[in-house]
């Protein structure tokens, strides 16, 4: 018996020892995929691309409106004396940001996350079989469109930025110059103009792809925006004129443009997609209602949070509208708190599908913007009639769209004002100010108005108007990025 037991022990030990520890040690995840077994099919490339669109949605539902709109003279925020915890958000509007402000990192990180996703998709797109080779090129165009859009925002907001086209697969690769060195603005533009052009060449015209995807029209408009930012109005004009042949048209009624039952309409050039039914609801209105509106506006989805009241239209913005302008009635509402009348950004208020959940898309690029851009180009180049384009946009919303003699006399200003009226809360204003070189002048005046209107504005607000943002403090400290002047 002893011998049998001994033999059994020895035998079974040897069996296990030699029957392959390697197999025993081979464990693989069962509920998620890994970079090693992903990026191997067309479907997986498509998933990776959806992930980039998803990042862009996140960017626009937060960082982009804080810096594109809230920072400008169009909107401010409703001061809540009872909740000073949003002080870091308020600093964006008040130009009192320090580089440790988490919003700086938020914009930076979100944008580069989108770029990283794009680079992973691009690095792998040629390694997988596609059923239809044309589709491969279309997808490549979408990736390039999104990546160049992220860079375009970054280069306008931060100036020189690292220009990264590699997927960072390993720490060695990531801790390299490509990821750590800022390259000049001009170099970034050179690259993203080329990418935008490739996207134009690869992407299908509107209607020939699923709604929500980038099209040739979107790429044309993006590239036009880049040229305009570089004061290259002739090139932009050509691209915008091409857009006019793609079948875009203005909706007849301003309020219909953003309505949930009219998604992806003929005016939409690039619309950020939400879907309540698919569990991807939007929620931006909740942050724009007055913080003290309780359940009056939000109903059962409320009450409003104590840090709502963001993107509150300024008096300056309100007075820019004629009282009978349909855009005024739609974009801005007024809430009577009992003590004060608070304006708020009602543009995207189409009610709620469920508690706090909306089914509203967000217009990133739309045709009215393209027409006003073209008007600006004509004004700069003399290559066409800006007034006709202005009237085309105005006539939809104004009983009397005709321009006054004063407006005719200063068309630069008129076009800029029209953009404010038409595109309020669509996150273009700050970039318009940068493009027209008016940021410091306009925001200084805006600051004086704000201080006159509101006793709550601190004295150091609007005294240091910098057109470039600082790089995130933590990133500068940890990785030695060169900081922008005035942010050290």
């Amino acid at each position, binding site marked *: 018996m002893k011998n049998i037991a001994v033999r059994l022990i020895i035998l079974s030990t040897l069996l296990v020892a030699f029957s392959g520890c390697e197999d025993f040690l081979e464990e693989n995840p069962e509920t998620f995929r890994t970079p090693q077994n992903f990026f191997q099919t067309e479907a997986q490339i498509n998933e990776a691309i959806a992930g980039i669109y998803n990042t862009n949605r996140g960017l626009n539902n937060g960082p982009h409106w804080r810096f594109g709109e809230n920072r400008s003279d169009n909107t401010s925020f409703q001061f809540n004396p009872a909740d000073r915890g949003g002080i870091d958000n308020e600093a964006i509007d008040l130009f009192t940001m320090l580089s440790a402000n988490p919003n700086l990192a938020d914009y930076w990180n979100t944008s580069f996350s989108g770029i990283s996703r794009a680079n992973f998709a691009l690095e792998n797109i040629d390694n997988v079989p596609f059923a239809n080779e044309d589709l491969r090129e279309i997808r490549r165009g979408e990736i390039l469109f999104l990546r160049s859009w992220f860079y375009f925002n970054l280069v306008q907001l931060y100036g020189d930025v690292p220009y990264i086209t590699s997927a960072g697969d390993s720490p060695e690769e990531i801790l390299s110059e490509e990821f750590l060195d800022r390259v000049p603005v001009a170099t970034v533009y050179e690259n993203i103009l080329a990418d935008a052009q490739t996207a134009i060449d690869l992407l299908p015209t509107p209607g020939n792809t699923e709604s929500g995807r980038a099209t040739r029209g979107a790429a044309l408009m993006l590239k036009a925006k880049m040229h305009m930012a570089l004061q290259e109005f002739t090139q932009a004009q050509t691209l915008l004129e091409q857009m006019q042949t793609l079948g875009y048209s203005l909706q007849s009624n301003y309020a219909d443009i953003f309505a949930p039952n009219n998604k992806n309409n003929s005016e939409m050039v690039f619309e950020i997609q939400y879907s309540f039914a698919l569990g991807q609801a939007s929620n931006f209105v909740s942050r724009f209602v007055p913080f003290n509106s309780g359940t009056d506006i939000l109903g059962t989805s409320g009450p409003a949070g104590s840090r709502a009241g963001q993107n509150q239209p300024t008096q300056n913005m309100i007075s820019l509208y004629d009282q009978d302008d349909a855009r005024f009635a739609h974009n801005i509402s007024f809430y009577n708190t009992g*003590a004060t009348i608070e304006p708020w950004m009602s543009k995207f208020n189409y009610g709620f599908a469920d508690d706090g959940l909306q089914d509203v898309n967000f217009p990133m690029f739309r045709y009215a913007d393209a027409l006003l851009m073209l008007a600006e180009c004509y004004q700069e180049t003399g290559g066409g009639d800006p007034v006709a384009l202005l009237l085309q946009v105005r006539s939809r919303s104004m009983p009397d769209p005709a321009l006054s003699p004063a407006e005719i006399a200063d068309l630069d200003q008129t076009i800029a004002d029209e953009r404010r009226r038409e595109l309020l809360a669509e996150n273009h204003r700050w970039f318009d100010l940068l493009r027209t070189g008016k940021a410091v002048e306009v925001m200084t005046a805006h600051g004086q108005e704000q201080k006159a209107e509101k006793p709550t504005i601190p004295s150091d607000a609007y005294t240091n108007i910098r057109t470039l943002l600082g790089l995130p403090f933590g990133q500068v400290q940890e990785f030695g990025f060169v900081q922008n002047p005035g942010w050290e």
Partner: protein
Amino acid sequence: MLLMLLGFSVNALAQSIVTGKVTDENNEPIASVTIAIVGTSQGTLTDFDGNYSIETTSPSDILRFSYLGYKSQDIVVGDKNVINVTLSQTAEGLDEVVVIGYGSRDRKDLIGAVSTVKAEGIEEQPITTFEQALSGQVSGVQLRQNGAPGSGPEVLIRGIGSTGGNNAPLYVVDGIPLGNVNSQRDNFILSSIDPGSIASISVLKDASAKAIYGSRASNGVIIITTKRGKIGKPTITFGTSLGYQDIPDFEQPDVLTAEQLRRFRIDSFEDRRASVGVLGPGEIAELDRLIALGDLGAGTNWFDEITRSAPMNEYNIGVNGGSEKVRYNVSANYTDQDGTLLNTSFKRYSVRANMDVDVTDNIRFGINLAPSQLQATGGRTDAGGDNFNIFEAVPLSRWTDPSAPLLGADGQLTNVAVGDVIPFYNVNPVYLLTAREDNRRTNQLLAGTYVEVDIIEGLTARTFGSVQYTDRRNTFFEPSDFPFNGALQPNVLGTRQARAGIGENASLNYTWQNTLTYTTTIGENHRIDALAGFNIEKNRFESTSITAVNLIDESITIPSFGNTDPENITNFTGGGNAGANSLVSLIGRVDYAYKNKYYVTGTIRRDGSSRFGADTRYGNFPSIAGAWRVSNEPFWDSLKNTVSEFKVEGGYGISGSNANIGNFQAQGQINAGPDYVFGGGLAPGSAVSALPNSSLTWEEAKEINFGVDVGLFNNKVFVGVDYYDIETEGFLAGLPLPSTSGFGSILTNLGSIENKGVEVELRINNVLGGDEFTWDANFNFTTNRSKVLELAAESGFIRTGAIARNFTETRVGEEVGLYRGFNVTGLFTQAEIDDPNVPKYPGAVEGSLKFEDGNGDGVLGDEEDFVIIGNPNPDLIYGMVHTFKYKNFDLRAVFAGAIGGQNFNGTNQFNGNQDGVFNVDTRQLQRWRPGDDPNARVIPGTASARSRQNFRLPNSLSVDDADYLWVRNITLGYSFKGDIVGNFFKNARVYTSVQNPFLFTNYDLGNPEVNRSADTALVRNVNYGAFPISRIVTLGFNVTF
């Protein structure tokens, strides 16, 4: 090697036979006592009645009588044919038998730093998890605990060796490795073990002791051995204790009463008016409203409302006995502990049964079975890991408006605690604990079985298989009027927000361990113990979770699809997860002793783990150590009367850790989740969420240990001193990556940390030397100093921990996890405000917070002016155990303390918020006000918004010294002896025990051993409001039939 060992044979030359009987101090026979002839491999065991018989070869033979838990005795045979021996129970010292990895050793033959805690005393302490029994008992071990029922303390052995989240030791129970268990809350793996069933706890601290556990041992190993059957008539033990828990006064947060808070707010407006001249119309209206409220009195003390005194009961029953062939031990435990926070509780039902069977003279087998069920209730008690985690019951009770009533006008508990004084409100803390259901049930089975075969004299083969099966089910339910989690202004109406969820987790961990041990003595002077083994281990887990929100019928509290509105597809969600890891190991150890003077031990373990990439899968973990028992040298004889024992030892070894790497982390991860919408339909999205790192490998702790063991005056006094220097290389942590890569960090073998320290253990047996009254004293001291030697991080530091900004820094050349923030230098005087050369920030006025211009740029800013402001690591930790006996009485007191560590006051983020939106702490009553001398005040005035913000950002006023001495436990017992009980019981005993009776400290923010569940290696000792510690008084009795 096997063949070589087989080559020996032992020729015994029979000369005479010695017989005798071994008894204990009560004259009870002891069975299974080992009787060995010293210097040979010959030996025998006592039988059922304590009798033995052994053949000796010469009158000079020495018989060694040894038995676990008793002092060994050596007796020279001489011309005696009958030797009767009375063994006495070990006072801790050099005679004890110490359980080590895959074996045991006599303390005096042991090399390496191994501390032990004996069973005595554990079962009478009112503790629910055995780790609590380590407090104050052993050197080198830091514990931090709070009062959550059934929760274990954080255990740290010889410092932080890894910046990853897991610095927990490896726990091994009766040979079953349970892993590096570091979950402090609901520590369901360890709390399933009834502390009363434990026979001994060994803490393996240095490399030569722990290297045999290889890749999981670098944070130390804690080996638990449970009680086993003894030969003898069945003894039945029954014990019970009834306890009462209450919260000591110092845990009461010092926050304002309703009237104090109203005055604070009124004064804040007045001070602002005094500073800036005018108030806005909104502010005037608010001021008038506050004045009109009138005196509000004390209001609601929310901490008192959420806490209670709570009972704690425990029942044990056990049977122990056996014949010479079959020995058994069965015990059952029922523990029922209500927590001192409402609705929290812990229940344990556990059984532990083992049996050892001698099949033949050479073959033995045994079986262990330990099924248990744990039930715990109550959740959302402590602050978690979020940046601003103030919505759990304890932090909530600290800031909720004291003017808010507990009950509404209808006499019912309000769901939201809205008061008159401050604008912020959230769920009524009482409602949070009582309306929310949070149940956690764990079934666990630990089972092991072995077969041992003595192949030849001294050579034993053993195969051991074990299973750990854990099935855990967590459920929660929140009714529809439960305010939405985390919202500052919650959904008061709360329609259709009822939520319910289930989480099911099952894991199966099996091991198969095969060892050969060989013990022999060559000649008289050479003893060899050898061990070789092969182990495999696999752990597989499977989990399912379901959450339903917007329940249609909320009387049904288990989520079901039919009970949710199908229109919103996010109302019903669920998912599953599964994974596994495996480990293959070879182990070897050789111990060699020459003349009981010179000892050498060498171990090696080779581990292969599925967690690492194929290239780096295997690791070797060797160790070598030697000892010289100087006192056994002839030249020591003259000293023997004073220095009875003197041993020096040294060792070096490598152990590892794979605790900070997930099962598949080396492979990276694709996150399926960033979906989108194309063409109105779902477009599933995916993204790389973690990069793979195929070169990930073990953390390696290279450790040097020197020790001296000294026994004085016939071992009445024992002193053990150990010095260690551990260099953890390649510790696993996130290497920060520039966010331009789309990633924040990647798990890497990031750098190295050094921990150096000295441990001293001092034991004095019977200090006063009396017969009737005895006093045993036991002291231990540890100093540990960590230093970061190397970090792969580009910057040379890692910053983490979020209180609006990163408030800890771990930097090359410094200790781990230092606090950073503004270094407050006082309050601004008017002269400084007027002086343009004094650095300041916009909006600073007289009485505003003044701090060091950290970057020296002449202006005060934000994080750029942060400097190092504190250090959480204690300089010295110490403990004491005193045991007094007088006649039938015994008294035992356990002390635990620490010196030199600091705590970070996380509550300052809300209780120090001067905006008037939270309740604040009583320090605010001493704040600067107009007319005060700024140099005479510490807490800044409230006029400047920037000053208020800077004060709640991390700053040096939030760092507090946390020196303390806990009297951890006092137990007083009375044992009935002699005729009083003799007719009914073998033994009877009554005792009373007090846990946490006294605390001596200057720390005035509650329990100085702050223990926040979200603390990590780099973010430690953050007081954010944790489960209050309780003082527990129990009365119990034990009887043995």
